[in-house]
């Protein structure tokens, strides 16, 4: 265990990790990439908010309304600092990463892109960073170029350079793959994109929870992530964007809070960030996300990252010992805490099912990355992923379980 970081102590904060899957079989949770477990600090915050300060935000002047508004806006500041936004008005609350990307595609995309314009996606994108752009492309007539994934599970940056020469308007890329674990060189990709006059829109769903992120240093234009993957509740996520870009964009959804004035047949749009927050937001969940960020800050994002690096290299070593098992993606040094694999002769569903019998929770399927699986000529993989609460012992139980799988199907 690096420095003061002790996953065995941290685990104690997470009620779910104390549960038994069945009698005498404790949970070994290796599915954080889908969603993380929540520490009691976040659950207590939610409960406290709903028990004491619950009110609608922004418009009320009674005590609870002021408390709720302060909680909601303070969480925005906390989250802004977490990714080093220069201004908390750049922090837009959405439901999740997916909605954040749809917001950009619809609001920025429909205003700034025209028929025949090109955008760049990659072969390793999550469906959430593919489908919104496909829908936009079909609607207004865009050309989509794709950066392929090479045999090491890395983006082919040579092709990227060539595609940039076609003058795309935007590059939409994930910071970290939720299947291969690949950490993409976003900072360099951003420099290249900007050199060619393209914006870069980053899916940070798998990076923000696991490593220090500085959107100014990365020099990206939009960055999206979800609370539920970083110790926070479901129902809330973030779109960060450069102030000038967001400020120039038309609203996405219409309704309460995103307006200054409404007449019967027209309205005036509100300022940032409210312009993009129509209707009663996920107030409790936003405040809970703030608590999650405080929790992560308390441990230190750099320490979390180092811990995960440690666990994932141990996991890859041990996985590679299992005969007939293939781990997809790059070496441990170039990836986050995600390992997707296949086992000869056993369907990933069957792997996951048998592991579940021993309390080991891994995911099986296409992990919302069908094109990436197609590229590897797979229909599904099994995926074990790691977070701040996972230990070598969790990895050992996974490996034990995999040996059992082989026995059953031997």
């Amino acid at each position, binding site marked *: 265990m690096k420095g003061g970081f002790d996953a065995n102590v941290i685990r104690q904060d997470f009620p779910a990790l104390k549960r038994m899957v069945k009698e005498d079989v404790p949970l070994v949770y290796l599915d954080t990439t889908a969603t993380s477990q929540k520490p009691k600090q976040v659950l207590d915050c939610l409960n406290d908010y709903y028990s004491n300060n619950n009110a609608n935000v922004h418009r009320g002047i009674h005590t609870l309304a002021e408390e709720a508004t302060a909680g909601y806006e303070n969480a925005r500041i906390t989250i802004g600092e977490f990714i080093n936004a220069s201004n908390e008005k750049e922090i837009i609350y959405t439901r999740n990463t997916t909605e954040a990307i749809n917001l950009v595609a619809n609001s920025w995309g429909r205003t700034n892109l025209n028929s025949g314009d090109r955008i760049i996606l990659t072969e390793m994108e999550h469906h959430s960073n593919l489908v919104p752009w496909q829908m936009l492309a079909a609607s207004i007539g865009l050309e989509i170029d794709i950066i392929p994934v090479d045999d090491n599970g890395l983006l082919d940056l040579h092709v990227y350079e060539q595609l940039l020469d076609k003058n795309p308007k935007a590059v939409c890329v994930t910071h970290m793959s939720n299947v291969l674990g690949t950490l993409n060189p976003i900072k360099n990709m951003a420099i290249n994109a900007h050199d060619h006059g393209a914006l870069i829109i980053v899916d940070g769903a798998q990076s923000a929870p696991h490593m220090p992120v500085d959107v100014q240093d990365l020099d990206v234009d939009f960055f999206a992530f979800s609370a539920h993957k970083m110790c926070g509740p479901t129902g809330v996520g973030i779109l960060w964007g450069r102030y000038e870009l967001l400020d120039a964009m038309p609203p996405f959804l219409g309704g309460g809070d995103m307006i200054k004035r409404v007449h019967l047949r027209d309205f005036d749009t509100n300022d940032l960030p409210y312009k993009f927050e129509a209707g009663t937001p996920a107030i409790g969940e936003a405040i809970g996300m703030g608590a999650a960020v405080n929790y992560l800050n308390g441990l230190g994002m750099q320490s979390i990252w180092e811990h995960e690096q440690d666990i994932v290299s141990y996991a890859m070593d041990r996985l590679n010992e299992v005969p007939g098992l293939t781990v997809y993606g790059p070496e441990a040094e170039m990836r986050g805490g995600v390992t997707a694999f296949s086992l000869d002769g056993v*369907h990933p*569903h*069957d792997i996951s099912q*048998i592991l579940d*019998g021993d309390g080991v929770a891994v995911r099986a399927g*296409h992990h919302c990355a069908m094109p990436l699986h197609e590229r590897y000529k797979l229909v*599904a993989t099994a995926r074990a992923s790691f977070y701040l609460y996972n230990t070598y012992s969790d990895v050992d139980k996974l490996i034990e379980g995999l040996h059992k799988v082989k026995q*059953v*199907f031997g």
Partner: protein
Amino acid sequence: MEDMYREVILDHYKNPRFKGELDPADISYQDDNPLCGDMIRIDLRVDENNRVVECAFSGQGCAISQASASMLMEDIQGKSLEEIKEYSRDDILDMLGIELGPVRLKCAMLSLKVLKVGAYGVQEWIEE
């Protein structure tokens, strides 16, 4: 959950009965479960009374989907299409002899879905 992998299921998975294709066939249909990539194709030959005289399945996927297809093929030997129409979710679960959660249920039901839709068209298949 390991009892989900009863001997009989693993046996059908490892040694599938009626695996292959019939060409020509009277009825051929295939479908997949995009979530996990399970795929099943079923070919049938029927006699003048609409009774199954020959059948085969092909495809790929998890033990549950493939074993249930193999068991189903065994079971419909000589049955009429009318009788096939009566097959229910519970019949499949009885054959497998296990309980299943919602995701695995889709694996188990894929072969029945292919069979019924092939025989009667999609309106016959109501997901339960």
